[in-house]
């Protein structure tokens, strides 16, 4: 049963990690626009890259 003493902290840490990722993503503004990105992914990468290199 002592395995649970490792499992619980491990699961909590894992949870904490994902929570951190979620907070980071929110602050990045990744949830501000839930419509455009799904279309953006379909546009040829090349066009966007070209502009960025200039």
């Amino acid at each position: 049963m002592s395995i649970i003493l490792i499992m619980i902290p491990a699961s909590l840490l894992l949870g904490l990690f994902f929570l951190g990722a979620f907070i980071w993503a929110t602050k990045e503004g990744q949830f501000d626009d839930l419509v455009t990105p799904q279309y953006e992914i379909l546009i040829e990468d090349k066009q966007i890259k070209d502009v960025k290199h200039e």
Partner: protein
Amino acid sequence: MTANMLLTQVNSFDFLNHLPESEMRFHIEGVRCQNCLGKIYELRQKLDGLIELHLNMSTKQLLVRIDKSKIKMSHVANEISILGYTLQPLQTPSESEKIQKEKNHRSLIGLGVAAASTGNIMLLSAANYAGADPGYVYIFDSLSFLLFLPILLYSAKPFWQSFLLFWKTKSVNIDLTIITAVVLGTGFSLYNLIHKMGFVYFDSMAMLLLLLLASRYMLDRIQQRYLNTNYLNPLLLETAVDVWLPESKTFENRPVKNLTRGDIIQVYKDQSLPVDGRLISENAYLNTAVITGESQPQKFLKSDLLFAGSKILSNKLKISVEKVGSTTRIGEYLKQLSDQIHGETQLTSKLNGMAKVFTISIIALASLLLIYFAPSNFSEGVQRALALVILACPCALGLAVPLTQSLALMKASRLGIIIKNGNVLHEVSKIQNFVFDKTGTLTYGQFEFDHWSPDSILTEKDFSIIMSLEQKARHPIGKAFTKYLKDKNTSLCKLDGWMEVFGKGVSGNLAGDFYEIKSAPIFYSDNPLLSSVGYYKNNELLAVAYFGDQIRPQSKSIIQKLKKRGNVFLLSGDNINQVQHLAKEVGIPLENVKASASPEEKVQFIDSLNYCAMIGDGANDAVAISKAHVGVAVQGSMIASLKAADVYFTIEGVEHLYHLFDVCEIFEKTVKGHMWFSALYNLLGALAAILGFINPLVAALLMPASSLTVLMTSLWGMKTIQLKIFKKHLSKEVLT
């Protein structure tokens, strides 16, 4: 090379170049799919000097950042409008918008924290309910407490804030029961935890808070989405204008906000007048539709007062500044509007009142229980009180109603009805008076060709001359002519000496003949809605063309239907003849018709009626729309009206008004069902809790059960909305 061509072609965005900003935001209409996005993003490659171009399709905002030395802002704007999208420049992001965004981020993070903690608490308590060893139970409960702390101290902040508000203003709000339940529950659970007495309820509290936070976040986002037309202020203060500088004796471009009364400015064709001012030039033609709703060009004489927002149709005008910014007539309008929009509450007073009574009585009952049991069995008292508060926590009011509301708003938006204010859903059923604007609402609001008199006398050559004459004309009739002749595939011919005289007409020469289109002597026409122009060859009248604003085909039937619900009024700025004719056509009683109404008179009229809906489209209706109980703006409305309206249609026509009623009816039914269900549930639960049949554990299980039930019923009730409406209309059509 293309750049030069384009710049000579379209000039309407030129004023953007006078602004100092190299970064601008636009409101963009018409972007729907991946193709549109691809077309716009192609510009990233095509335009040199464009640093950033980003489109947010959910807020319909386009961000443009440019290198000013390489490209002009107007060029970018023109390129996009050539693709077929409508652009409107926005003010630089205001402070309130930034705060709003940060607030959204905070509540989303709060929700994330709550979800993560609750998930883990649930895992731990599942083990407890499954019958873990007492030693483990203690560890798990302690861990639950630690996990509950972030929810209590961080995520639950909105509830603490409304508690603080209650403390300061002493006005009861619905969050008070939640706070009571949480404080009581936490205190009791913590006490039990320390004394190892069992009865630890961190899991139920966490779940309660999570559900509440989630439903509120959803509602918030939906409401914000539809309210975000608020920042669409015209660029009255932002634009620059040519100002006369006495020192250097030249006109120079200066920001409008620095202007003062008495300054002399020069404005050009197609510009929007940025100030209220007096005309110095001899005469001027302006389109004042933004203010008066009148779409015909208006003639002004020297020293006449011109209003900001009017579009200039004459070539070059000198104007002496009278008022700037928010003191202009349109500025005052907009200010009045934004005051009204921000003054609105979220829940209706009725619902709020109910919640208040409920909250107070629950808390009073709980305190009574505590006092009653305090001397004999304090623990029992706390248990019963807690069970009562948790069970009676008005989840139907706090959770299901907002959820149903946001679902109704979403469904309505799919039907082409944007409801900006959830209160409307309750208000619509109370409406007794319906007030319609004429132009653009019951009619199409555009000049369209009606017929020739005498008919079929003109040849293909005449049509081609007319087309060439009217093609460049700025008068609405010119546009109507061009549209009608383009549909007939008329070709152009080359005219000499083309000329447009405002208020008179257009003229030109072809092969020695002089052709003219100008107002004709009035012929008998039984329809005063039509206006006419004559086609002249060498000063001899050949034919008269009639133009009119066509009545929408559905107008009559919708008015027939509305008459069964209440009184229908017609309120218009147009002259009495036209308005009465229209009223007869669509079946509005003549005593309910008010013509030649100024915007101010419209407001007075609305104020004199109780429970009225105003349906309109022009900026001149805006204040009336916002004053009405339910303001409705039809598709294609002026921005001011969209801002003012509680409801606006994204699909052409007025018949959606009936869908609005359907959505509201179904909403009311669902909400009423919830009220009865939760009243019954809470009453029985409260009784059981007071009598001690239910301990907090059972209450904690019953509470989410009831929440889940109301959530399911609201989802189900709203899900069938489209089907119900469809069936209803289908059966009606079969009957008629």
